C-alpha cells in the first residue's frame, strides 16, 4: 500500500468518486483499481478469516477420516477435506490480490491475531457430527456465501462462486448421511438427534452477533462487501432448515421455535451471546486444541518448507550457470 490516510480522510477527488460510482452501479472493484484503505483492510481481514476458517475447519472432520465406518463415507470425507484445503488456497490467493502475504496471514492465525469461524471450536464427538456439520455448518456457510458471490470485490466474488458449488455438494452429502442414519438402528437415530442438539445453537452463532452489536456490518454493507445483515441471514437459515429437520425426523432444541404466519418467518429463541463472545475470545471447548494442531503442523513442517526453498534456489543457480555456459 502506498497511501497512509485513515478511513475518515476527506474525499480523494476523482479516484474516490470513481470508486463510489463503481460500487453504486453494482460493478466490481478489481485488484488494480484505487480503493479506500478501509475497504482494503476490511476485505483483507474478512477474506483471511474466511481462509483460516477453511483450514481450521479441516480438523473437526479430518478427525473422522481414519475412523469413518464405511469406505464410501471415508472417500466422501477425504474429498471434502481436500476441497476445504483448496478453498483455503483460493481465498489466500484472493487476499494476496489486495497486497496481503499468505505467510504473514498464517503467522497472524497462529499467533491468534486473526480469527476463524467460532463453529470450529466445538468437538466432533460421533460420526453423526460429520453429517450435521455438512447439513448445518455448510448450510449456514452457503447462506452467508451465496450473497458474497455478488460481493463488490471481484476476486472474492469469483472465489465464492467456485466455493459455493462445492459447499452445496457437501451439504447434500451431509444431509444424505443423516437420512441414512435415521433409517438405521435406534443407536444411530439417537446419535443424530444428539448431534443436532449440540450443533444447532453454535450454527446459529456462525452468522455473528446480532445487528445492533455488529460494529463492522454497516460499513461493509455500504461498500457492498456484505449484502445482508447477520440477523437477516440467520433468519433465512432457520427458515431453510426447519422443514429439512421435519423431513429428517429430528427436533431442533429450541422451545420458542414456531412458524409466524404474520411475518412469514419462523420465530426462534436467542442464542447465548455470552457463549459466542467467550468462544471468539479463545475460551471455547476446542480453541486451544485447534490452534495447537495448526501451530505444530506449521512448526514441524518448517524444515520441509526450508528444504523446498533451498532446493529451488539450487535449481535456479544451476539453470543460470547452464545458461551462461
Amino acid at each position, binding site marked *: 500500500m502506498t497511501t497512509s490516510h485513515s478511513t475518515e480522510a476527506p474525499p480523494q477527488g476523482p479516484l474516490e468518486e470513481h470508486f463510489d460510482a463503481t460500487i453504486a452501479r453494482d460493478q466490481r472493484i478489481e485488484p488494480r483499481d484505487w480503493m479506500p484503505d478501509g475497504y482494503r483492510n476490511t476485505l483483507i481481514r474478512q477474506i483471511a478469516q474466511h481462509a483460516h476458517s477453511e483450514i481450521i475447519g479441516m480438523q473437526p472432520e479430518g478427525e473422522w477420516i481414519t475412523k469413518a465406518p464405511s469406505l464410501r463415507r471415508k472417500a466422501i470425507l477425504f474429498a471434502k477435506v481436500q476441497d476445504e484445503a483448496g478453498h483455503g488456497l483460493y481465498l489466500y490467493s484472493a487476499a494476496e490480490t489486495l497486497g496481503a502475504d499468505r505467510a504473514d496471514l498464517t503467522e497472524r492465525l497462529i499467533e491468534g491475531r486473526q480469527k476463524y469461524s467460532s463453529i470450529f471450536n466445538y468437538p466432533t464427538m460421533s460420526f453423526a457430527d460429520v453429517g450435521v456439520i455438512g447439513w448445518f455448518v455448510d448450510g449456514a456457510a452457503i447462506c452467508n456465501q451465496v450473497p458474497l458471490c455478488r460481493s463488490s470485490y471481484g476476486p472474492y466474488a469469483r472465489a465464492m462462486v467456485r466455493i459455493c458449488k462445492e459447499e452445496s455438494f457437501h451439504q447434500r452429502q451431509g444431509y444424505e448421511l443423516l437420512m441414512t442414519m435415521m433409517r438405521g438402528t435406534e443407536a444411530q437415530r439417537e446419535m443424530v438427534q444428539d448431534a443436532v442438539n449440540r450443533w444447532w445453537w453454535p450454527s446459529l452463532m456462525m452468522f455473528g452477533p446480532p445487528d445492533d452489536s455488529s460494529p463492522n456490518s454497516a460499513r461493509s454493507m455500504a461498500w457492498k462487501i456484505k449484502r445482508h445483515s447477520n440477523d437477516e441471514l440467520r433468519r433465512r437459515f432457520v427458515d431453510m432448515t426447519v422443514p429439512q429437520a421435519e423431513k429428517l425426523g429430528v427436533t431442533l432444541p429450541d422451545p420458542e421455535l414456531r412458524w409466524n404466519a404474520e411475518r412469514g418467518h419462523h420465530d426462534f429463541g436467542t442464542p447465548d451471546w455470552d457463549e459466542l463472545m467467550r468462544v471468539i475470545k479463545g475460551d471455547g471447548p476446542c480453541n486451544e486444541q485447534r490452534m495447537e494442531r495448526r501451530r505444530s503442523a506449521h512448526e514441524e513442517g518448517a*524444515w520441509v518448507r526450508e528444504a523446498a526453498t533451498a*532446493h529451488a534456489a539450487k535449481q535456479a543457480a544451476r539453470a543460470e550457470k547452464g545458461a551462461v555456459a
Partner: protein
Amino acid sequence: MSTPTTHEAAAFAGAALALGDDALVLSQRLGEWAGAAPVLEEEVALANIALDLLGQARVLLSLAGDEDELAFLREERSFRNVQLVEQPNGDFAHTIARQLYFSTYQRLLYGQLAAGDGPFSGLAAKAVKEVAYHQDHAEHWTLRLGDGTAESHDRMQRACDALWRYTGELFQPVDGLDLDHEALESAWLASVTDVLGRATITLPSGPRTGAWAAGAGRQGLHTESFGRMLAEMQHLHRSHPGATW
C-alpha cells in the same frame, strides 16, 4: 475370460485382496496426515493420493467380496498387504520415502498388468495414470528433501535407510498375478537408484528383507503398529453391527 476354474477364481480373489489391501492400508496412513501437512498444497496432494488409493482399494476389494466387510471385519492376520504400506508415517521424509518406494512399484506393476490381457488389465489401465502422478509427486519431494538443506538431506537419508528392509517383499510372487517379477524388480531398482542419486541420497546398502519377513505381509504377518491402525479404522464399524452408513 473363459470360465475360470475354482483355483483360478480363488487366485484372482486372493490377488485382488492383496493389491486392494496395499491400497487401503496406505490410504489410511495418508489419512492420518489430514490437517498436519507442512504446507497447504500438501494437504491437497496427500488427500488426493489417498483418495486415488482408496478408490483402487474399493474396486479391488469388491472383486474379492464386500468392500466394507473386508475392510472393517477382518483382523490383522487376514490382511494381505505388504508391510511397507503399514509403516507409520514418521516425519514427512519417512512418508515420502514410503511413497517413493511404493508408488514406483505400483507404477511398474500396473504398467505390466495394463500391457497384458489378464483379468486386471482394465483396472490397471486406469490406475497406472493415477500412480504415475503419485510417483512424480514422491520423486519431486525426494529431490527437494535430499538436495535441500543439510537437515532435510539427513532426514531423507534416514527415512530411505529405515524403510529399505521392507522393499524386498514387493517382488515376492502373488498367486493370481501374471507378472515378470525379475523385470519388475530390476526396473524398480533402476528407477529408485536414479531418483536417489539425483537427490544426493546414498542408495541404502542393508538387506531388502528382514531375517524371516520375506513375503510376510502377504501371508498375514504384520508389524506391531498395524493392529493399532486397524483398531482406529474399524472401531466405529464394529461398534454397530449390521448398521448401514
